[in-house]
């Protein structure tokens, strides 16, 4: 996938928030840069010291603010700079994945990847692959959905209110 191939103007460009751990995946992304690898410009990187710092709420917040995908990158199991932070990440994110599914956020919008500091190439392939897959899924637009749900609820509230008034009138 190359972003500059913009023949189909108005093509959906997913917005992906990427949480990268400082020691492995952030460094790998630096290495991709130093190596001048080219990949899709759709990620927005937020640096954390360890993938274990990523509170599931960060992921939920990103989706609720309009992210179409969230990528979380950490050190390979056994190689965490902080010994075992990535195992805790794995544990948490498995739970979060189930929750996201129940919330209607489809598979592939959230992705956990182990990318070591030497794997600049993997940053490229993972980002390109994720962008292609999320593009195929289309926009998530949770903020829009929230609005829809709010107005549905408002409508519901209004009709409940009206019918209870009516009932009172009849009585």
């Amino acid at each position, binding site marked *: 996938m*190359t*972003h*500059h191939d*913009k023949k189909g103007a108005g093509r959906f*460009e997913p*917005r992906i*928030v990427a949480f990268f751990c400082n*020691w*492995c995946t*952030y*460094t790998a*992304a*630096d290495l*991709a*840069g*130093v190596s*001048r*690898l*080219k*990949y899709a*410009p759709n*990620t*927005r*990187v*937020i*640096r*954390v*010291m*360890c993938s*274990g*710092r*990523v*509170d599931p709420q*960060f992921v939920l*917040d*990103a989706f609720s*603010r*309009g*992210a179409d995908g969230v990528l979380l990158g950490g050190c390979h199991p*056994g*190689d965490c*700079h*902080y*010994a*075992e*932070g990535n195992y*805790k990440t794995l544990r*948490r994110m498995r739970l979060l994945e189930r929750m996201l599914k129940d919330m209607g956020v489809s598979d592939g919008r959230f992705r956990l990847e182990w990318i*070591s*500091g*030497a*794997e600049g190439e993997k940053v*490229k392939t993972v980002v390109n692959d994720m962008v292609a897959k999320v593009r195929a899924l289309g926009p998530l637009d949770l903020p829009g959905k929230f609005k829809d749900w709010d107005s549905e609820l408002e409508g519901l509230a209004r009709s409940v209110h009206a019918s209870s008034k009516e009932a009172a009138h009849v009585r």
Partner: protein
Amino acid sequence: MKSASNGSGPKIGFYICHCGTNIAGTIDVEAVREHAAKLPGVAVSKGYKYMCSDPGQEMIAQDIRAQGLERLVVAACSPNLHEETFRKAAAKGGLNPFFFQMVNIREHASWVHEDKAAATQKAEDQVRAAIHRVRFHKALEKKRVPVHPDVMVVGGGIAGIHAALTAANAGKKVILVEREATIGGHMALFDKTFPTLDCSACILTPKMSAVKGHPNITLWAYSEVTKVEGYVGNFKVTVKRKPRYVKEDLCVGCDACIDACVFKEAKFPDEFNQGLSKRKPVYLSFPQATPKVVTIDPKTCIQLKTGKCKMTCAAACDRKAIDFGQKEESKEVPVGAIILTTGFDAFDPKRHEYYGYGRYPNVYSALEVERLVNASGPTGGDVVLRDGRRPEAIGIIHCVGSRDEHTNKWCSRVCCMYSLKLAHLLKERTGAQVYNFYIDMRTPGKTFEEFYDRLLKEGVQFVRGRVAEVNDWAMTREEEGRLVIRVEDTLAGFVRRIPVDMVVLSQGLEARKDALDVRRIFNIGCGSDGFFQERHPKLAPVSTFADGIFIAGACQGPKDIPDTVAQAGAAAAEALALVDAGHVEMEPNTSRVVEEECSGCKSCVPLCPYSAITFDEAKKKASINEILCKGCGVCAAACPSGSIRQNLFEDDEIFGEIEGVLS
């Protein structure tokens, strides 16, 4: 969460670096600057060709003073490169250095994207994130932690020897740990070194004795590091000292025990001579072994295997140095810095079956030939083949396990040169016709090309082409009873069959087989090739991502002796700079508990890998030991009441970034 969109917050200064054309070539820096200028709170928004330069830093410091800036955001390269630079610029202007946030728009944007509009959009989003985040920053201070003055060097090859001597000469106490029974490493195996042909032992063994005799060096040979705890300046290293079954302080290496061993003949393969000769269960690796102490091999010693030996060796020792009851010992030592010089493994030529190594006795590995041509080797330097013949024609095959899609893709850097050296030595010793089969001759080094020229003049034959196969299927009378090298001569343009009596396989260099285990012990990284990963390929070539742990020599990648020694010196200098300072400054990104908000659930306590969190049963509150905390933030993410805050990575700051990139 606090809204980040009102303009009443702190005054923010924003600066965008053009980095020549590195950033400005792909990102519309002026558009980003304008975008930032309109964001709430931004009082100054400027661009400059090189922000990291003196004038760039001075501009920041002046603006902080003149405009009363309270926060600083710089969009430039990776924070791993210049975060510290701009923190200092902030401090110079009188601002707490942690009121600063860096945006990486070079490595993460301009260098990896081609679409200018999309790269600019990404830069704007990331800049917005930083501006949203930085308002939540707090004034912080770096912790100063004292540093232990001792240095540990792991690996006693030429790199470790040189690093240990350098640090010890500077007055530091050094512990040199070596896995084998003697120091010396690969260099001790060689007869001559390229391109000067000076005698390897003559330049190495004085340095080995200097290590042994140095008052500042403690040499622990036959030992391995099993555990590293602590952090930069304050490591606690556990070293396993394997039993030699000989008391090191009593043995003088007189060989009386070796002569007295119940095995009258040596019958076990001698590892030092690459199995070309035999040794007894009690042995000294080579005459100059350091420490000069014999070792008893538990796999072959009858007493250690069965307990039923006459123990003539012990009886022969007048110093009573032999101790069959010796046990493995574990020692714990504190050190401030660690230098890893664990070296390389030579490629196992058995993996290239078509070259016949292990099948045809007269196919040798280059390391075997190093011993064969060595005056102190198994034949005293006489080149006699395994079948007792003297070779009349010899083929040296380059790039065995190098530049090969199927095994190792890299060039091992030293093989061309050592192949030339072996060609010279073999021709000198045997008068044989010597062929070199090469892909490309790589001779980039001081007087390397001249050495190649010399070999051409000496009449060594060079055939350009990757050898297809070595076999013993004779097609002509001349080939009978010999080895045949089949190769496409790419300069002549046809396939040749060249009969020889001896084949030398120039093995490439690989990472140690246990490099992955070692890197885990030291918490450093390996590249995809398996060699230890340096912090920066150009600017931090002997540092690693673990502060206080340095690497030198072939454990970082294939290199020759001069480069190895240069790196070892560099690593020693880095270690000295660290321990000599007497203290280190630690990132203040530790976590803390806001006591009033802590519900006392104890979720965080078992999560901390450093046992930095304790629970006060009286107060029913958790508390974090700032010295033990390494700042991963795992506890902060897990705290259900949100009462754990990680400095520099507080929830507000990260939520601010999320809001920023998506708004």
